[in-house]
């Protein structure tokens, strides 16, 4: 029995991924006539395993996709990032002019409000963050 418990304890760190540390989660406000918003955040993977965000959703948005603003052929374009991977110990920053979440709001966003957004990881685990709407 003790051996089984010991075995389970050694396996435990491998079974579940660490939680991502997320700071500065915000959404840039735009007038209600505009059908998109951009979401940004600073992500840190404190664990020893690679963590990938495979899906982002929220009741306030019909869809949320991660994109990256890149310059190609002299033009700014958005490239879809279907899976956002954060290496162990690494930081990935979503900020204006770079990686961002492209979000389609279902209703007007208001400066100062906090909107829950759910991140789904590659192992099925989830984290819900509060994003503040800024001007």
């Amino acid at each position, binding site marked *: 029995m003790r051996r089984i418990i010991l075995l389970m304890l050694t396996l435990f760190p491998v079974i579940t991924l660490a939680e991502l540390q997320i700071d500065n989660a915000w959404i840039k406000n735009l007038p*209600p006539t*505009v059908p998109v918003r951009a979401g940004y955040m600073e992500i840190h993977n404190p664990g020893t395993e690679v963590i990938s965000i495979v899906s982002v959703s929220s009741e306030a948005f019909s869809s949320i996709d991660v994109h990256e603003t890149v310059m190609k052929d002299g033009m700014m374009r958005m490239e879809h990032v279907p899976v956002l991977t954060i290496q162990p110990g690494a930081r990935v920053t979503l900020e204006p002019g770079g990686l961002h979440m492209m979000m*389609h709001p279902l209703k007007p966003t208001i400066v100062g409000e906090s909107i829950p957004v759910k991140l789904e990881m590659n192992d099925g685990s989830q984290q819900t963050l509060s994003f503040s709407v800024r001007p």
Partner: protein
Amino acid sequence: MNRSSNTLFAVLALIAGLLISVYPDQASAVQAKSQTSPAELEAITMLGADTRALPEFELIDHHSKTLDRSRFKGKWSLMFFGYTSCPDVCPTTLNTISHVVSALHDPRVQDTVKVYFVSVDPGRDKPELLASYMNYFNPDFIAATSDVNNLDILTDALGVSYRIGKKAEGDPSYTVDHSGFVALINPDVEFAGLLFTDPAQVQAVARDLTRLVNGR
């Protein structure tokens, strides 16, 4: 020359030299009347010899009024291209330009600098939508668009590229790729310079615009 006029010349030269050394601003003010030299600007890149007159063009602004070359005379205009369904680049650029304009403290400079946002997405960006978009950032900014043929006259002249990524007719959520730089149009309606917006350079751009306005 005879001796006395030599002496007179020497005395006058000495006085001029003393005046210039005591009042250097007056001497350099004479130089500043001509085009501000690129070396004096911090954030704006001037085209110099590549400065070129804009062709005739016609867009409709967000007040549903015609926007053509004539409205640019006598002003220093910042013009950039994008679309309202752009979540990241366009709002970020507009924000930075808003801060630049707020940083212009001289009323004469404020009056001379105009901001234009040209939408390269005429399919979705109708005047009412452009109006609410501009008013969100600064009600003095002017948004404008036109059909692709009219847009191309202006984008070609400014070296602006854009590509509408419509996947199918009636596709409501396509993206548009577009050049990210801001074009500077001088009071003679010439494409005279450009800059890339950077939130860290707001004050530098404001100083550059002040130099350009005061340099004429």
